[in-house]
């Protein structure tokens, strides 16, 4: 029956009717909906950080939507950049070219963020970075759309280098990944270490996906430093730690914000993670009122995954963006203008103030050490009192 012309016509007509039905409006809402894009690594090796950040952003949106005083209803469009620069450019282009998206809260990975900066500028989409710490993201070019609530890696390295030399370490080797992030880490680490009287006796650049580090570790072992500085992200850091132990190397491993979080400790295991040092540009979230409030609300919301190191920053950035939209209206240009005037904005990570380049200048660096499977601030740890000793500590 379907082969005859009337049969086919009926089928086609039926299909068109289905089409028409789906176009029917689905009812109207009381408030206008405003879309905000959130971008981070939802799949791949960094997904723990991405999912924590997304959950935190969703939490902010949920709380805002439950607030009757809000002028608008917010919708979070979560996009996955897979921590890859090219995918980041694609999703940033997608967010930018979608006129219904008013603002963006992008990127955990610095390599991805530095690739997408011009895209936001091209589409005039205001954005507030929630995690990436590469300085050039805000300081490379002065672009009105670019802002960041997390710190830059300059601060962590300055504090870190002084701290290490104060502890008595003199001979360092730097192993960083070959993205702009790793290169910047290496640059500032070396600069501040030399300023403080230390020596960097070897430098190694490794692509972030490289699996086998035997070649590099063989050479490092030969150089016999006291500490190895790692400038990269959790997956590579995991490999460094596991493999250096297999080679019988007892150097201290010091990292930076890239390895802060449960992901690194879970991947490496409690035993191997013990005594690893790191530096993180964040206030003690559990000590401030706003921070404690965030932690409580996150737990109440019932997310399975932890909010990870930068969750509070993601929460703060999303709230900031929404408040500016409330203030200036759902218009990209007006929101960009409003974001230029952020001073002492109260948030889960402390007061946020943007300088001329859109960079938040308030974060302070906290020193962390892994103790019993958790990142513990140095001052609170047994290493500070001398009860436990770091590798190669004098």
């Amino acid at each position, binding site marked *: 029956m*379907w*082969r005859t*012309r009337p049969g*086919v016509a009926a*089928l*086609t007509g039926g*299909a*068109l009717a*289905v*089409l028409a039905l*789906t*176009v029917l409006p689905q009812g109207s809402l009381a408030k206008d909906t405003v879309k905000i894009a959130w971008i981070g690594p939802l*799949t791949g090796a960094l997904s723990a950080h991405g999912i924590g950040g997304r959950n935190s952003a969703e939490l902010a949106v949920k709380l805002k939507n439950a607030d009757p005083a809000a002028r608008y209803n917010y919708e979070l469009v979560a996009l996955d950049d897979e921590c*890859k*620069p*090219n*995918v980041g*450019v*694609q999703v940033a*282009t*997608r967010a*930018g*070219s*979608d*006129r219904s998206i008013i603002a963006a809260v992008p990127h955990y990975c610095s*390599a991805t963020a*530095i*690739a997408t900066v*011009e*895209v936001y500028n*091209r*589409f005039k989409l205001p954005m507030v970075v929630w995690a990436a710490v590469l300085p050039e993201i805000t300081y490379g070019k002065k672009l009105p759309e670019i802002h960041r609530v997390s710190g830059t890696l300059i601060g962590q390295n300055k504090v870190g280098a002084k701290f290490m030399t104060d502890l008595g370490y003199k001979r360092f080797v730097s192993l960083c*990944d*070959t*993205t*702009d992030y790793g290169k910047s880490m290496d640059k500032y680490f070396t600069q501040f270490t030399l300023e403080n009287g230390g020596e960097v006796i070897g430098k190694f*650049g490794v*692509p*972030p*996906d490289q699996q086998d580090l035997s070649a590099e570790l063989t050479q490092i072992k030969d150089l016999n430093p006291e500490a190895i500085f790692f400038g990269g992200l959790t997956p590579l850091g995991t490999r460094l730690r596991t493999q250096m132990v297999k080679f019988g190397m007892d150097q201290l491993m010091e990292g930076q914000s890239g390895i802060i979080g449960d992901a690194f400790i879970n991947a490496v295991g409690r035993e191997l993670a013990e005594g690893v040092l790191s530096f993180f540009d964040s206030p003690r979230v559990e000590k401030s009122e706003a921070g404690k409030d965030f932690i409580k609300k996150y737990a109440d919301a019932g997310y399975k995954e932890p909010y990870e190191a930068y969750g509070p920053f993601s929460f703060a950035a999303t709230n900031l963006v929404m408040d500016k939209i409330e203030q200036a209206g759902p218009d990209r240009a007006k929101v960009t203008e409003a974001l230029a005037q952020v001073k002492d904005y109260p948030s889960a990570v402390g007061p946020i103030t943007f300088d001329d380049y859109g960079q938040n200048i308030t974060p302070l660096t906290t020193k962390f050490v892994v103790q019993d499977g958790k990142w513990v601030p140095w001052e609170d740890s047994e290493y500070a009192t001398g009860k436990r000793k770091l590798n190669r500590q004098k």
Partner: protein
Amino acid sequence: MTSAQRAAPWPAIIAAFVFAGMLAAVAAIDNQRLVIALLCVFAVVWMAAMRLGVLARVERSAGQYPHALRGAILLAALAAVALLHEDNFGLLMIATVLLYATCCIGLTIQLGYAGLSNFGAAGFVGTGAYAAAVFNWLPWLPDPLVLVGAGLITVIVGSLLLLPVLRTRGHYAALTTLAFGIMFGVFVDATPVLGGPQGLKLAGITLLGWDFSNDIRVANFVISFYANYVLLALAIFALAIFIASRLDRSWLGIWLDSVRLDETASAVFGVNIGWWKILAFTAGNFLAGLAGATYAQMMGFIAPNNFTLADSLMLVSAVILGGIGNRWGALPATAILVLLPEKLQFIQEYRLLLFAIVVVVILMASPAGLVPRRIRRLEPGVVA
């Protein structure tokens, strides 16, 4: 249905407009439920067309009036651009589909015409893209030269592989291009000058003084700047079709077919196998490089991750999906491969899995592809 019947030009023209309309509609619509509904409608219409013999009429008509077909496609494309004039991302995707299809045509020439397997296609596309990125450092070089230059550089790099490709058969030949694809990725990832894993940024295209990052403004009518790229991609696609059809419908095509079907017999009859393989390999690489360079400048950014083994396999899948040796088949196949995952977000993650399954099914059921290419029949009025 006698093959010598003279057909009218209008089935082909209408088919062109319908296809362009479908493409534009899917590209423009954001609502996922609507897209799915639309796709179901199109599937129904397609099957209806097959049953009623409409497709056969379109093919006959297209074969007899190639110029009408091409004119129709051009007009339809312009209409689509006008329809989508404000939709940035939709236009970007259409341009991507056209460029991807160009790569597939290059691959069709290598695989479908000459029988050369190429599992490193993404490496050649990447060579063109990186060539364009390097030319970017010489801002005095005009963009048309950059594009052609990128194509030529891809040809040169490809020619380094000619000796192994010519000397090996079967599995050994497959290894050559496979290894090249991997070598390209490793090389670019490890070389800081080429950006390493961080990738390279590129400026957009400027042709004859017109900067492609400017929106087109006609009175109060604003067309997104991506339309510039759509038109350029269309021109490049047209060039690819032109090259492929000239190759196919000539004595070169006959010799390529002969080489593909039976090398030993061809050699016995005095066909110089080496030359024709070189021709096909080079032509395919040129198109791949050209498309890669254009894509790179359109996106403004490339990284080694854009050109992996998975991407090479996707390109080969598209060629198979569209029918090996069918140069027009590349377009609908690419449209499916590129548009569907973007539009149907929920399959975005499963994209590679789904396409692998589809290719396996096709290879098991119909090894020559979805729309197998008929070996040339040299009577008038039939698509050869």
